[in-house]
């Protein structure tokens, strides 16, 4: 024992003169750090996708409906409710939050006597920390999800305008799995899809490389999977939660990824080909997506289905309105052939009213599904429209689909901003023309698919926005035509619709083209329905107003497709057909089962 050892401990006294370490007041003296993982907060950006619930390993989060929440597209109406008898403040929910609405405050004190009290719905319940500005939020450079879409191989612009080969090459298996892997499987998209396809489920099938299961899932709601995998308007992708911080999942391409991996020969084996006849007959007018979809689902339930088609081939607008570089004929045939192989009879070149009276159909069949589509191009109704060099967009597409030369010449103006206009423009490019698209509104108002707009521009179609055609005049040469158009000012629509263009008379332009292709919209033609029936059917503007299950005032008559909905796309027509098939079944059997 040394003297030093004896004395040294007394050094402790030196610290007695130091400033005390003690915090005077609890809570107030030392708020949580700026990054503190305290109690949860949620902003109005939340769309209730439930990904937080999925990742929570403590099952601390419930998704609950919130009263008084405004109904929004792509919003489930649910909000996360936290159980603070479970939460461990790991903040994985904050990290995974697809909209970044969820975060944490630096508030951490919650003391009560009641163990049942530790529940609250973040963002909607009034909590003391709702205005807190500090607290944990995800770092910008830290991700638990993959935000970039996997690119699909596509033809370059130069290659693609050189012919009618399909532009998008489809995902390889690896690409498809990687893309499918990005999905959080929340299911927000299902409500937005007109056909309510089981999107998360079939994406999971892609991820698991189980294409047979995937195909079965697709066919539950959509017998045009090969088609929709290519040209669907994919409303689902507009609400995809991955789109909030990155690219939405390529849902459409993943659908195609399934179909591309199942050869047509295996469809009957995978999906089954048994039909138990139930002895009833249903007629379908129009072999487009709506009609054939109804035919498919009716046939599966045992109905004898006859489809009447005025054209020489089935597919309707998919065949005659969608060029083959977007939807190759064989892919459309893949869908159609399987439906026909189940025993659906299609009578081609048969016009209702001309070849077969409507009255006969409605009397002969137990029920009738009508989906004739909109096939009458709207006229421009401007001066000089009758000029022979003014063509209709639908006519051009029909010609090309049927192998005829539409004779567009080498300098073409296309009027319109829808898919038909884009297709007409791109077809004209492929026929070697120099194409200008005149559109009354702005590019962001165009109803065409963004991809189509983008691709058409990449292929060299020029776009003139806010150009209102005013008059068509003869040009110096008879093989040419001159168009007069004026610039437009956009004015806002006070009801929240898309802005409307107003002609500026003082800013007019004139230009001469080899032809003008008008594609400003289409209407329907229903003259074949005799007046006695028509009086019992409800219409609004130029469309049917179907009742429950697509039924009309004429109980035997069910309608669907472009002629009966405002969305006018293939997937809506398909859903109408499916829905009507159920309606017909219910109408004839009194039940939805079977």
């Amino acid at each position, binding site marked *: 024992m040394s003297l030093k050892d004896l004395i040294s401990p007394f050094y402790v006294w030196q610290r007695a003169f130091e400033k005390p370490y003690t915090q005077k007041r609890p809570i107030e003296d030392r708020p949580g750090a700026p990054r503190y993982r305290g109690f949860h907060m949620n902003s109005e950006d939340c769309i209730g996708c439930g990904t937080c619930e999925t990742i929570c390993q403590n099952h601390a989060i419930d998704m609950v409906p919130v009263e008084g929440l405004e109904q929004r597209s792509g919003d489930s109406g649910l909000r996360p409710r936290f159980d603070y008898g479970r939460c461990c403040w790991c903040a994985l929910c904050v990290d995974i939050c697809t909209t970044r609405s969820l975060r944490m405050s630096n508030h951490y004190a919650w003391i009560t006597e009641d*163990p*049942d009290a530790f*529940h609250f719905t973040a963002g909607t319940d009034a909590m003391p920390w709702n205005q807190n500005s500090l607290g944990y939020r995800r770092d910008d450079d830290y991700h638990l999800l993959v935000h970039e879409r996997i690119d699909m191989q596509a033809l370059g612009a130069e290659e693609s305008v050189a012919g009618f080969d399909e532009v998008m090459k489809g995902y390889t298996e690896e690409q498809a799995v990687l893309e499918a892997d990005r999905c959080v499987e929340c299911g927000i998209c299902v409500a937005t899809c007109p056909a*309510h396809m089981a999107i998360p489920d079939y994406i999971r099938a892609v991820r698991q490389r189980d294409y047979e299961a995937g195909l079965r899932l697709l*066919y539950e709601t959509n017998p045009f999977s090969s088609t929709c995998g290519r040209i669907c308007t994919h409303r689902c992708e507009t609400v995809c939660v991955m789109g909030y911080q990155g690219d939405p999942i390529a849902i459409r391409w993943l659908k195609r990824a399934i179909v591309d991996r199942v050869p047509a020969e295996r469809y009957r084996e995978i999906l089954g080909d048994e039909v138990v006849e139930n002895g009833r007959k249903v007629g379908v007018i129009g072999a487009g997506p709506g009609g054939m979809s109804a035919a498919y689902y009716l046939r599966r339930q045992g109905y004898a289905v006859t489809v009447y088609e005025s054209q020489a081939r089935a597919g309707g607008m998919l065949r005659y309105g969608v060029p083959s570089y977007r939807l190759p004929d064989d892919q459309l045939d893949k869908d159609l052939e399987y439906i026909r192989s189940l025993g659906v009879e299609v009578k081609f070149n048969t016009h209702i009213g001309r070849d077969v009276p409507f009255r006969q159909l409605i009397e002969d069949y137990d029920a009738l599904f009508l989906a004739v589509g909109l096939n009458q191009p709207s006229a421009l109704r401007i001066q000089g429209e009758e000029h022979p060099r003014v063509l209709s967009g639908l006519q051009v597409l029909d010609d090309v689909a049927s192998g005829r030369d539409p004779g567009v010449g080498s300098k073409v103006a296309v009027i319109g901003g829808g898919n038909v206009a884009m297709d007409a423009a791109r077809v004209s490019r492929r026929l070697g023309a120099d194409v200008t698209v005149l559109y009354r509104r702005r590019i962001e108002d165009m109803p065409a698919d963004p991809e189509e707009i983008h691709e058409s521009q990449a292929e060299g179609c020029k776009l003139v926005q806010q150009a209102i055609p005013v008059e068509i005049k003869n040009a110096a040469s008879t093989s040419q035509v001159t168009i007069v158009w004026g610039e437009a000012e956009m004015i806002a629509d006070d009801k929240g619709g898309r802005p409307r263009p107003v002609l500026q008379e003082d800013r007019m332009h004139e230009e001469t083209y080899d032809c003008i292709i008008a594609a400003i919209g289409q209407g329907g033609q229903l003259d074949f329905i005799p007046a006695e029936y028509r009086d019992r059917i409800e219409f609004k503007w130029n469309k049917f107003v179907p009742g429950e299950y697509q039924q009309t005032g004429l109980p035997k008559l069910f309608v669907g497709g472009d002629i009966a909905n405002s969305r006018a796309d293939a997937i809506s027509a398909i859903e109408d057909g499916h829905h009507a098939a159920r309606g017909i079944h219910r109408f004839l059997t009194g039940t939805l089962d079977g």
Partner: protein
Amino acid sequence: MANPIELLQRFGKNFAISEIHEQKADLTFFKVPKEQAVRLLRELRDDAGYTHLAFLTNIDWIEKGIFTLTYMLHNYDARHSLGMHVDLERDNAEMQSIHGLWAQAATYQRELREMYGIRFPGSPRLDEDFCLEGWDQIPPMRKEFDTAAFSLERFYSREGRGTEDPREHMKGLLYPTHTDEPSSGGQ
């Protein structure tokens, strides 16, 4: 000191060593039959310098009907670890005890007895409770034991919870007529 592969090949003359897998520079796994395991452990410890038993544990391969014991040995001089696998039948699993080689192995064996039901005859305090007390179920680490179901059944969960699936909720809210039928296609 020879490299681990050579070492295992050398031992392979006397032992049925299989499934050699070099996971990384300082970690090699291999398998040996149950009967030879303890003898090999002793030789590895005494002759090859693998003096440190890092741990002894078990993997339940329920679908194959086997337990795989893993003995993790370490050689301080060579700075190398060996993971030795020994397969046991899952039913009535039994293994020789190594508490004579490493004292702490007795504790591991006690734990394996409790958590998987593997017997190590002769191991001290083997059948005493280790972590559990009054356990009346199958050993909890066995794959067929469902801990969540058991917890719910015995310890309950607090009332007042309930969640909804966004997809189903939206279905009920936005397109209820589509909810009630079994789909007709693609079955």
